[in-house]
């Protein structure tokens, strides 16, 4: 990453600027971006609330109370109750565990497999690149929703299978991004220099190429979490996804849609939860992209 060298130094020999580690430098720029900071705080707050849900949640996630079905939001039930009289707020907390884990792990799967394929294709090129890229083209040609559905139908519904389905559907995305950033980095002089001093392929990949291509991946990964949560939600909308009565935001949203006319709180709060989680991840993604790419500095 070329740091723009300022032409014409200060009159007296410039005091050597303290070599800030790349992380501090990026964090410095990230901090200045209020939107990104807000996103970071929001997601941390949600993660904390979700981890401590057994303590925070006023009710169990499957505590049914048939005398209080469809109660609208009140002090007892912050977000009201659903068609079986269960407290929506508690279900949101427990559901958050599932949704956020789906988001993060499926991005992990996509990142790992996609990144690997992208790295191999990008670095070695030639026939390997061609075959891997044709495979990626095939995966991309199949619409991701249908790919996810058939994986889920093949493996059977359930949390782990949803994660795999959503993860696999996002492989092409990461593979292409990593491959294109590697292709451009490969031509940089410092890679040739490393090769000139006899560094082995694996060393070059790990030391030079991956760190520099991380910025593109990190940005995509953060936005990918948002996309994963939404696609998991759409999966339960079509009837796949996690088994009841375990709560999951998407399942609650799709269950609530039949009542949205008379009891909109059942749809409103899960929708807002998904919206906030995805928004914060996207804000972080945006902030990271600006922080990691000095050119866009104000």
């Amino acid at each position, binding site marked *: 990453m070329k740091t723009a060298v300022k032409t014409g130094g200060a009159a007296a020999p410039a005091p050597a600027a303290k070599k800030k580690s790349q992380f501090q430098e990026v964090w410095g720029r990230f901090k200045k971006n209020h939107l990104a900071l807000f996103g970071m705080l929001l997601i941390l707050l949600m993660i904390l609330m979700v981890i401590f849900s057994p303590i925070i949640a006023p009710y169990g996630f499957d505590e049914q109370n048939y005398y209080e079905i469809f109660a609208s939001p009140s002090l007892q039930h912050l977000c009201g109750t659903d068609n079986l009289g269960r407290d929506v707020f508690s279900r949101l907390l427990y559901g958050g565990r599932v949704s956020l884990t789906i988001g993060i792990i499926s991005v992990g799967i996509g990142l790992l497999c996609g990144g690997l394929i992208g790295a191999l294709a990008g670095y070695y090129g030639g026939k390997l690149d061609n075959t891997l890229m044709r495979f990626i083209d095939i995966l991309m040609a199949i619409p991701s929703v249908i790919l996810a559905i058939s994986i889920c139908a093949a493996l059977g519904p359930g949390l782990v299978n949803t994660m795999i389905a959503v993860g696999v559907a996002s492989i092409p995305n990461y593979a292409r991004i990593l491959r294109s950033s590697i292709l451009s980095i490969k031509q940089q002089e410092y890679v040739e220099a490393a090769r000139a001093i006899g560094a082995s392929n694996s060393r070059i990949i790990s030391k030079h190429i991956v760190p520099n291509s991380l910025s593109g991946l990190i940005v995509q990964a953060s936005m990918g979490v948002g996309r994963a949560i939404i696609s998991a939600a759409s999966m339960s909308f079509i009837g796949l996804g996690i*088994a009841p009565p375990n709560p999951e935001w998407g399942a609650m949203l799709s269950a609530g849609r039949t009542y949205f006319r008379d009891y*909109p709180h059942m*749809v409103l709060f899960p929708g807002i939860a998904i919206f906030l989680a995805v928004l914060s991840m996207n804000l972080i993604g945006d902030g990271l992209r600006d922080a990691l790419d000095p050119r866009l500095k104000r």
Partner: protein
Amino acid sequence: MKKKVRILALVLGTLMLLSACAPSQSQGGGQGTPAPVSTGNGSAAPTAAPSASAKDELIVAVSTEPSSLDPHNVNMVTAFMIGQHVIDRLFVADADYNITPSLAEEYEWLDDTTLQVKIREDVDFSNGQHMTADDVVYSIQRACSMSQSAATFDYFDGPNTAKVDEYTVNIKLKAPYPNALRVLAGGRGGIVCKSAIEEMGEDAYGRAPVGSGAFIVTNWSSGDRIELTRNDNYWGAKPAYKDLTFRIITENASRTIEIETGGVDIAWDIGSDDVARLEDDPNVNVVRGASSTMNHIVINSVNFDTLKDPKVRQAMHMALDMDAIVAVAFKGYATVAESLSPNSTTEFAKVGPTAFDPEGAKALIAESGFDTSTPIVLQIYKNQQIQSMAEIIANMWTAVGLNVQIEVVDRATMVTNNSSGKTPMCITSVTCSDGNIESVFRQWEKPETGFTDDEALIAAIKAAKGIMDDAERKAAYADLQQQCWDLNTVIPIATGENIFGVRSNVQGFVFHPDKTPNLTGITFG
């Protein structure tokens, strides 16, 4: 250019705002009392309805698309409902299952196994062919041979059914069978045009059936709509309107909205949560009544021995508060099951319901020494109502100490597993169309499905079907219902309701428990 951009941004901004604050507008009231949503001035002809419901077209919204309209090659209620308007039958059953002749002018039982039927002579098919006895014989033989209708026609002897003269047919039975007329009046009793099928081929016929009914199929755009128009040389009473269109809308909410906004004149399967709102709507009449579908839990104690002990099954039955399930899962629009069969069947005998007694259930489980930690798997397929039932039942069983796991399986897998007895326990339903109780016990006859391996019971079930004398047959079925109820391998829950939404300007709509109302008599008020 710049100014235009600003105006566009403004419009879009308001659009976003409007959609964000929309839900607060129709803020629901507390439990049970649905908020009266004012649906504007309730004028009959809403502004943006498609072809504003001109008096000449009846638009009906159904929730599923039939795979075919060939009476012998399909097993979907929607197919029989639409099919009855296109293909006539020898006999017709009204809402109370009273049989009246239709194509058959006269009929008489020559002996226990031969029914002589004389058909009308003035009937032509929509392709101009004249209907003769050959078509009737062909239809009966086809019904016996086609895989989707053979089970219903298992008592009919296709090969021996023969033509007596141009308009008379002797229909043979393999053995005396009380429900013969009811089967001929049922969905699969349609009389098809022999020459049309041979010419078009089965598949094409299924999409554009040639019948002698009140309507003719003009267009079928799959996933969207099936359009029928009036058959002008129909032998019976011609319908008052010209076009009948069935629109396929799978989303419950969209169907309800279409009936509210007048996009359709009649809507099938109104969700139980929209009933209250539609009843308040001056433009819509809600027509509802008990259906002929029984929702029940089926426990496979033959192939899986987790629930082999009848005491445990009895306890599981006692642990369920059926009234609560009906109130919450069906929002009250259902009747608690009093026997294995829905109340609408002629041979129905009140046997249950079992009193809700969780303490007794706990005692019974303790007494049976059942290890409550073993997981009990309850399989369901993804359906809003079934999932609610499953979650309530699982909750009630957990309350009495059982360890229940709900497993969502997609519909195709469940259908395959059920028929081969691979499902440990599931929530499913059985429909007794034409008031015929046989479908309740049909699964029991095949040991591989895992309902029962008690040979005597299976023999009794098979025998009951052939008893001609009504009183004797009713007694036999009453005893069967009692025996199977006590066995507890099937825990009946409730019979749901068929709920239809009908625009106020539509008259002559008659409720039908099998969800196959006949629409030829509809007029616009």
